[in-house]
């Protein structure tokens, strides 16, 4: 364990350094992130303003404000695309350079994603998060979130991150068969926007759809941690939600290993 930590940690810290090396992208990223969150915010405010009900989809207007920003915080931290790295590696043939080293390809990708996650957590996420809390206390007059909820939220976030990257690894394996997956990435991102609850809280969907979503890993990626943050789950339900996340990690890990084994058997390295 300690040895593998020593081997894979540099991947994470290097990714962090790499991200910091591109300063322009760094500031643009914050700006773009904020922009998206505010569009969503005004959209929801308009919806609440024109509705005669105070609670929509189980959320009050104030809770919705928190939901909008926290789902942005969560998804920007959690959804780190491994698939694009895999596709890049396949197209350029650099996957060969990874395979000649005595390391696990998936673990090295995940470690890189961890570096990226930490970067995104430190840069836009923490600032927006603090902003949300200040706004909540000052303007909305709501109590600040409890330490206990923060800890649960962070735990859930880490599991969300793992679910996302493990899923994305499986998705990225498509690149080995089709070489190029840019188009499919676009479809994936659009679908994930809905399925994860990033754009619309899952509770807004019809009952039947919600039942279907229960059997998919996507709602565990964004919706679950944000609902935990809002304090919507407690007791048994909370335990169940966390367990469900853990089960998805195990299932996706197994699936990834299986697919990887199949892929390496028929791997074709491009170029040279």
């Amino acid at each position: 364990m300690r040895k593998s930590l020593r081997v894979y940690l540099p991947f994470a810290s290097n990714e962090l350094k790499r991200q910091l090396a591109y300063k322009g992208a760094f500031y643009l990223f914050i700006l773009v992130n904020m922009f998206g969150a505010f569009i969503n915010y005004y959209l929801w405010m308009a919806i609440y303003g024109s509705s005669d009900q105070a609670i929509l989809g189980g959320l009050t207007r104030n809770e919705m404000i928190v939901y909008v920003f926290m789902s942005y915080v969560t998804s920007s931290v959690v959804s780190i695309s491994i698939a694009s790295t895999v596709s890049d590696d396949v197209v350029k043939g650099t996957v060969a350079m990874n395979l000649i080293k005595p390391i696990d390809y998936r673990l090295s990708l995940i470690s890189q994603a961890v570096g990226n996650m930490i970067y995104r957590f430190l840069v836009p996420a923490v600032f927006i998060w603090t902003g949300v809390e200040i706004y909540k206390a000052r303007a909305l007059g709501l109590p600040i979130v409890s330490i206990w909820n923060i800890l649960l939220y962070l735990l859930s976030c880490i599991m969300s991150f793992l679910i996302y990257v493990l899923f994305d690894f499986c998705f990225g394996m498509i690149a080995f068969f089709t070489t190029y997956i840019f188009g499919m990435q676009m479809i994936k991102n659009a679908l994930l926007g809905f399925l994860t609850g990033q754009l619309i809280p899952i509770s807004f969907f019809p009952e039947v759809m919600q039942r279907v979503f229960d059997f998919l890993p996507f709602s565990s990626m964004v919706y679950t941690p944000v609902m935990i943050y809002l304090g919507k789950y407690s007791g048994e339900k909370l335990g169940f939600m966390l367990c469900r996340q853990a089960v998805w990690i195990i299932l996706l890990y197994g699936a990834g290993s299986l697919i990887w084994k199949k892929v390496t058997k028929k791997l074709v390295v491009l170029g040279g």
Partner: protein
Amino acid sequence: MIKVDHISKDFISPKKYPGLRGAVKGLFSSEKVVKTAVDDISFTIDTGEIVGYIGSNGAGKSTTIKMMTGILTPTRGECLVAGIDPSRHRKENAQNIGVVFGQRTQLWWDLPLSESFTILKEIYNVSDENYAERMEFLNRVLELPDFFDRPVRTLSLGQRMRADLGAALLHNPKVLYLDEPTIGLDLVVKDNIRKAIREINEKYQTTVILTTHDIGDIEELCSRIIIIDEGKKIYDGSLNDLKDKYGTKRKVSMEIKQPEKIKKLSLTEILGVKKEECDVEFDKEKNMLCVTFDKHKIQVPQVLTAVMDAVEVKDVQIQETELAEIVKEIYNHGVTA
């Protein structure tokens, strides 16, 4: 050290049809084309050997290397590197090997070179003492300190290649695969890289397998060469044997004082050989007489005396067939026994 046993690799790709109609047809057909990139190749390589693995473009060199490094799984056959099957135990095998693909880099593109080395140290689990000793050696042979703190993307090709070679050697691999290590390098850098490879081989008894299109690499480094063509092995033996067997042509060029006398001279008659066994050319402007012949049929002194008896000779040059010529010949016609 390395045992390759009847190894083959097939690549399967969907059949393509020409033209726009073909493109549409391709959407509906499921016909597959099988291309055998490596076809039933076997060889063994001992510890400490430097083997040149050569062949024309697309002959299957890189594919073989990729199978020996564990990146590709052979379709048929088996190979063992230091007792390990690379495709089944990729990670264990990776610990034993170092690889340089001339057209790619294994270094971290955006980071200073020093960072790449630190990561590699951890990945290969190199102890601090070994690392220090290695670095001292690599710094001396490859002159890394000049650019050790610069990001890899800012290095020149020659520097990057030296860095890559250093990176491949950091963990003291038993086997070093070099896939075109001198591609695109200038003469001085080429020379340095060759020197480094030789020194590494001598000091650590590293087995080196080298694919290259540069004849100089082969002549300076390899004691043994394997030639493959269209996936099949067509030659395996020492460099000298190859030269002996196929480089039998000699060319003697002589600058002559009395060009008018040369017309009367009939070398084939004097030497008692057939016309096609001895090719005589005369360049009137330079007064050069060139005689090309098979060294097993005619001896060089015979030619010299025959000519010198007839005319006065100012200057003589004797040329062997160059390795490049031999290799070109083999690529073109295959080996005729």
